[in-house]
């Protein structure tokens, strides 16, 4: 197992720069998830770690050794592809043992490694099958098996679950987590699905536009997003944003509602800010309290209910587990608990303290 050190790494295709100054230290045995919308550069970064893309500038180290010029085959890294990339002309056993064969491992060792991986993944009965004769979930397992037989320095996952249906995805997610618990292998996992990121990661790296937006534990990103991008990306349904003005420890919303914050912020009085609040933190209040909003749509999800509202003409969402909301009338009243309010300055950067409030 290994640590991976990314220092000041840049990537450009001709004159188009797709990654800007990426700095990231991944500890030995850590599970790091790169998350962001498509085109944010997360896959490119992963492929650079694998050696499939060159590093334009900066330095990439595995276990302290510079690998910028090292061929992928010499990096001792395993990768699980979104398409699984199983060799169609080889059976499952041959797919899993190909890397060991290339390393000229002894026959008995190969057989033992394949058998071990197969039993871990429940593939024993499928070893003679060709990929064509496997279901999507089985192919995914073989791709995982191909990675673990090698006992590589690190595992790279490139959206490995996005071709599976929802139930299977959930199941494989749990299995990946369990396997990481057993193998304690350094893993880097790319996904655009924030639930996968939240559930799997020791640390999440949120990326946007080729720039790292925030690095931290999943709940840290959820509780204290560093900027509006992370705030909007993490959490489902997404955070609500409202324009407001800051003055002396409180914010004033468009309808003059004043919300007093738990502490003063390092902002000038009269500064334009954006206030964010998660749908699950909004409180449905009695008439006469809070702000009035009209109900556009009621969406029951089983576990709870999502109310789509118009607040001063802006789309606004509320999530509640209270069934009474199903019959919510043409108007409801919403209130914001002051401890759950996120304030972002005019450039979208978090104005509340980043450290947990005591």
């Amino acid at each position, binding site marked *: 197992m290994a640590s991976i050190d990314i220092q000041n790494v*840049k990537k*450009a295709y*001709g*004159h*188009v*720069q797709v990654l800007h100054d990426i700095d990231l230290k991944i500890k030995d045995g850590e599970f790091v998830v790169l998350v962001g919308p498509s085109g944010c550069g997360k896959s490119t970064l992963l492929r650079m770690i694998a050696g499939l893309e*060159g590093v*334009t*500038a*900066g330095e990439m180290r595995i276990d302290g050794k510079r690998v*910028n*010029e090292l061929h992928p085959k010499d990096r001792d890294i395993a990768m699980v592809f979104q398409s699984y990339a199983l060799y169609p002309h080889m059976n499952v056993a041959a797919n899993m043992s190909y890397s060991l064969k290339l390393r000229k491992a002894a026959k008995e060792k190969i057989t033992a490694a394949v058998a071990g991986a197969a039993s871990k993944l429940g593939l024993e009965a499928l070893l003679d099958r060709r990929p064509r004769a496997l279901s999507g979930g089985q192919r995914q397992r073989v791709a995982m098996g191909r990675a673990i037989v090698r006992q590589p320095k690190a595992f790279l996952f490139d959206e490995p679950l996005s071709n599976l249906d929802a139930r299977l995805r959930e199941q494989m997610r749990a299995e990946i987590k369990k396997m990481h618990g057993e193998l304690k292998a350094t893993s880097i996992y790319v996904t655009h699905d924030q639930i996968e990121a939240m559930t799997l990661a020791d640390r999440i790296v949120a990326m946007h536009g080729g720039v790292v937006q925030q690095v931290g534990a999943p709940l840290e990103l959820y509780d204290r997003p560093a900027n509006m991008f992370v705030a909007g990306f993490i959490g489902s349904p997404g955070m609500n944003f409202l324009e407001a003005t800051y003055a002396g420890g409180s914010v004033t919303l468009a309808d003059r509602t004043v919300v007093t914050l738990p502490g003063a912020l390092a902002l000038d009085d009269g500064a334009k800010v954006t206030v964010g609040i998660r749908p699950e933190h909004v409180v449905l209040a009695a008439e006469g309290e809070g702000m009035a909003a009209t109900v556009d749509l009621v969406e029951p999800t089983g576990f709870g209910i999502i109310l789509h509202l118009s607040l001063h003409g802006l789309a606004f969402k509320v999530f509640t587990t209270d069934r009474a909301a199903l019959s919510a009338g043409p108007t409801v009243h919403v209130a914001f608990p002051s401890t759950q309010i996120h304030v972002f300055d005019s450039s979208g950067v978090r104005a509340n303290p980043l450290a947990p409030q005591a």
Partner: protein
Amino acid sequence: MSMTADAHARRQDRRPWQKRLADASEPYLYSAPALILIIVVMLVPLVVGISYAFRDIQLLNPFSGGFIGLEHFETLSKDKAFYTALKNTLWWTGASVFLQFVFGLILALLLDKPFMGRGIVQALVFLPWAVPSFLGGLNWAWLFNPVIGPLPHWLYGLGLMSQPGNILSDPQYAMWGPIIANVWWGIPFFAITLLAALQSIPRDLYEAASIDGASWFQRFWSITLPFLAPTIAITVLLRTVWVSNFADLIVVMTGGGPADRTQIVASYIFTQAFKALDFGYASAIALVLLVLLLAYSLLIILLRQTLLNKG
């Protein structure tokens, strides 16, 4: 910013220069054998061939070989046989490609429907393509021969001919002989390419159209044709160029006769080169044909580009 990033990148690229050279030359190494062959056996002779158009090259005349400028082209501009050949080329190419395309499209549509034994039927109807062209030409020449072939007798029986004669020696209809042979031989090419394109049309489009109440013809017109259009454009273009250069059938079946009625430019070049042994003049004609075909191709490509931009 990107400029500086680029310069920065170059400075930071610390791969040893040998490795960088090896990486950059990889695709060239892969293409080298093919490229060398093409350049030595086709491009160099092409350039030499073009130079012949401006020289006096006669195989049996040891004093020939000098530069004569545009003399061949002056002769050519007054050569009645050349204009006849040009007109015949239009007729030959137009009729051949049109018929090959129409029958090829119908065949592709017929084969696109699943039915029992489709594999065998497909193999059989595509078989003419595998027949060597000269043999196809001989074969059809024999079929048109009243001594040995049934066609004249059938045409006579149908009352289309006053007596079982050979249309290949009838100045008025002779061209139809090679055209029919060419259509027979070329249908599979269109059918194969169009079938391949048909099979890549998503089936749910047809289902959606059926549910919307579109008739077979409406579906063909609004889904099939637009999807096939790029393939049709490119295959018709390639085929037109190819058929206008294709002299085998005419050389084998009629030799350009009777009375030059089936002489096309490609077979005229052949005649000049190998019967009259005047390679200079033959090259001049070939050059004119090449320019005409290039102009035609450019026109089609530009037309396609404008249509695509509009769409």
